[in-house]
């Protein structure tokens, strides 16, 4: 009964979405305020219906309702409660339901937190989000119904993929989806502004906090995924340039560009057409990401049994969204006039270049990711693009980006003094010397480490300088700090996150050690001053698995650093073993031990040993970046009403008819 109710709620959600999409649209065309007013309650109704539907599916999982096919395929009587809940989005149907729910959460949030946006504009935004909802709900109801029943009813399920039985992965998809789908708000604002022919700084101001918040979720979601891959996939990597990872990284890059471009549009009323295009691009990449993950066209560590039919639907949806928005853009963009001018040497130019580098990097990754699909589709042979390519373009374009970031922080808007720029050679030399010092402290010299550390010091020093210059003439009192807008602090915190992130990748990539060894009980192996002593492995039994647990003592100069207990598990419902690595985490280094397989008769095991310096800084950097985004989102400017920006026609709506 409950599953049918869930499905009914799904259909109610679709009807609400249709109302949400169509009525406000008609209302804005025929100038009918009653229809415009429908947008808000319709979006809220859709949110409630989807929450109910989602709750029903969760209920089916929690109560082991194996009459639901999706539950049978992804749960098991022995599965702990936490993973029964996270199993809801553990596979295709449920993750689509989560996608739709998240979209309705964002729509709901827009109706609540956009009081400063004129009702007409808001109606347009909500209507566009409604159209996106229709697409996804239709997709789900037509091809991927999560509530489908199974007969005869099995007594127990097939179990959730053990890889997903992990806290990190339980929260990774919701975070990532909040980010992906959150970009639909910036997209909808951009389309609504073009539709109304009102691409102006007010539109940018409304979009900024939404873009920030979506970007925060995306940042955290990607970082969580990376962290999960590191400890759960068991092989110590934190980024594989896997197509599915790229699919989440590309919207992130474009969203980052969008945040910077929105700042220019908001403050200088420039880059309007470009900003609108970026918003379209960012959300299209989110949809592309969904398509790549859900259709299985790519060979990837994340891609599982593929289903071409579903792929075709998302591809069609993607084509419609991209096609329609670009057509609208082509019609509207030529009408946009930019009034502000800026010289070659200005913050605008720096931010423009920032955007160019980010977008070119995105295109490079896009090319590398899609190339294998095209060669297969065009029958040109089967290729794969190796990860050194992605590393190369990341360094190639990341370097000028970081240089620019240090340089741009002290640039003035509109026009800066050319001679003054030469003085920046001093901080640059200082950062080079500091970097040289840092690299010489490491075990050996590496050019890439020097490059990365120079950039990190450079950005840090320039950020500190900018900070000092701002507060040069005032005492650093609470009052003066309070006068400074949160967006100022947010920017600098986020850039500090970039510094920490850069240090993390630079040192991890250049100074990690890895060794696969075969050790008998009692034997030990020395790697980078650390001695790994293997004391054998014993059998263990868990709630839904059995396996082995190794015991490894790590010592450095005779002092015990850590006792590691990596596991190899075999879940009863699956045939393949699972590696549970043991990690001794630290701010300056991680020690990582994973069990391989048993060899011979005398209890010898293969072990994978890793020494990973500064790897935590990668995720720490991402957390600080998102913290910066959060602080910036609290800027009061985003919530102020700006009546001046309203056209007379909208004013008529507001004063004459709506009130």
């Amino acid at each position: 009964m409950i599953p049918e109710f869930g499905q009914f709620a799904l259909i109610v959600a679709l009807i609400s979405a249709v109302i949400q999409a169509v009525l406000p649209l008609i209302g804005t065309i025929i100038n009918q305020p009653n229809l415009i007013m429908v947008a808000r309650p319709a979006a809220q109704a859709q949110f409630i219906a989807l929450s109910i539907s989602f709750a029903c599916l969760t209920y089916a999982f929690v109560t082991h309702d194996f009459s639901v096919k999706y539950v049978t395929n992804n749960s098991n009587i022995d599965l702990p409660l936490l993973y029964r809940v996270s199993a809801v989005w553990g596979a295709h149907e449920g993750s689509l339901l989560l996608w739709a729910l998240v979209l309705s959460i964002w729509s709901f949030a827009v109706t609540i937190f956009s009081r400063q946006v004129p009702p007409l504009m808001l109606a347009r935004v909500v209507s566009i989000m409604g159209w996106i909802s229709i697409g996804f709900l239709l997709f789900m109801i037509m091809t991927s119904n999560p509530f489908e029943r199974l007969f005869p009813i099995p007594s127990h399920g097939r179990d959730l993929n053990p890889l997903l039985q992990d806290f990190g992965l339980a929260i990774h998809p919701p975070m990532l989806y909040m980010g992906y789908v959150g970009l639909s708000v910036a997209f909808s604002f951009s389309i609504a502004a073009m539709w109304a022919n009102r691409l102006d700084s007010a539109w940018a101001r409304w979009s900024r906090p939404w873009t920030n918040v979506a970007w925060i979720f995306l940042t955290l979601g990607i970082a969580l995924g990376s962290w999960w891959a590191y400890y759960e996939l068991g092989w110590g990597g934190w980024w594989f340039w896997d197509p599915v990872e790229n699919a989440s990284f590309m919207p992130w890059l474009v969203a980052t560009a969008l945040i910077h471009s929105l700042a220019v549009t908001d403050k200088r009323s420039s880059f309007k057409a470009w900003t609108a295009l970026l918003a379209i691009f960012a959300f299209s990449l989110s949809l592309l990401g969904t398509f790549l993950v859900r259709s299985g066209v790519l060979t990837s560590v994340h891609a599982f049994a593929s289903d071409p039919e579903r792929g075709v639907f998302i591809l069609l949806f993607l084509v419609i969204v991209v096609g329609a928005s670009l057509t609208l853009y082509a019609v509207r963009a030529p009408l946009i006039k930019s009034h502000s001018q800026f010289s070659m040497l200005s913050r605008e130019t720096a931010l423009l270049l920032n955007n160019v580098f980010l977008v070119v990097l995105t295109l490079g990754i896009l090319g590398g990711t899609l190339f294998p699909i095209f060669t297969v589709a065009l029958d040109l042979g089967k290729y794969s693009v190796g990860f050194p390519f992605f590393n190369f373009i990341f360094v190639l374009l990341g370097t000028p980006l970081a240089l620019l970031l240090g340089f741009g922080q002290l640039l003035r808007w509109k026009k800066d003094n050319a001679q003054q720029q030469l003085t920046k050679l001093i901080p640059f030399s200082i950062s080079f010397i500091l970097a040289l010092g840092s690299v010489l402290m490491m075990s050996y010299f590496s050019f890439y480490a020097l490059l990365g550390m120079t950039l990190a010091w450079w950005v840090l020093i320039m950020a500190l300088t900018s900070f000092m210059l701002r507060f040069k003439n005032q005492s650093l009192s609470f009052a003066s700090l309070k006068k400074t807008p949160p967006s100022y602090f947010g920017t600098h915190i986020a850039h500090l996150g970039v510094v920490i992130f850069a240090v993390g990748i630079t040192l991890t990539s250049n100074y990690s050690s890895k060794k696969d060894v075969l050790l008998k009980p009692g034997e030990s192996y020395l790697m980078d001053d650390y001695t790994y002593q293997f004391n054998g492995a014993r059998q263990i039994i868990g709630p839904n698995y059995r396996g082995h647990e190794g015991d490894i003592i790590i010592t450095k100069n005779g002092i015990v650093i850590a006792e590691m207990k990596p596991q190899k598990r075999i879940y009863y419902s699956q045939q393949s073993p699972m590696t549970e690595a043991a990690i001794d985490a630290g701010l300056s280094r991680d020690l990582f031990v994973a069990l391989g397989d048993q060899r011979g008769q005398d209890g010898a095991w293969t072990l994978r040993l890793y020494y990973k310096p500064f790897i935590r800084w990668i995720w720490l950097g991402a957390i600080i970046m998102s913290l910066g985004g959060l602080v910036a989102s609290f800027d009061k400017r985003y919530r102020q009403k700006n009546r001046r920006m309203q056209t007379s026609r909208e004013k008529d709506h507001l004063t004459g008819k709506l009130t």
Partner: protein
Amino acid sequence: MHPARARRLKLVVIMLLGVFIAGGFAFMAFKENLMLYFTPSEVAAGKAPTGQRFNIGGMVVDGSVIKSDQSVEVAFDVTDYEKTITIKFGEILPDLFREGQAIIAKGKLNSEGVFIADEVLAKHDETYMPQEVADSLKHKKKPGYGKEGYDKKRDGKEKETP
């Protein structure tokens, strides 16, 4: 020309130049890292390059896995049901590696015709078969295997994750 327009033109030219240079570098790196996929039959027929990295894919032959007692090294055979190639791998195999499963290995062919892998990929799902392997097995006539057998297997046991 209007000075503002001239400035803008200069900016655009500089940017395009930068993009082209970056694009050129990226393209070179791209060409270097492009790896072709070969089946065991193609490798046996000498179509695969020696001394250059490429991908090979196939099913791991039952009973062919030999694990050394002295080092981490493993050797196993992959087949497309016509020809069989021996692969040697000096690292720990992924969890999903099993006899009778499809895998993809990356590495080089040595002078004795043994494939020295530096990476072995087995997929998360036990019913999953890499598309390349599925395609290349499609035409081979081995009852119960190949694309059809694979499809049948999948219908009974369908499973995905994000």
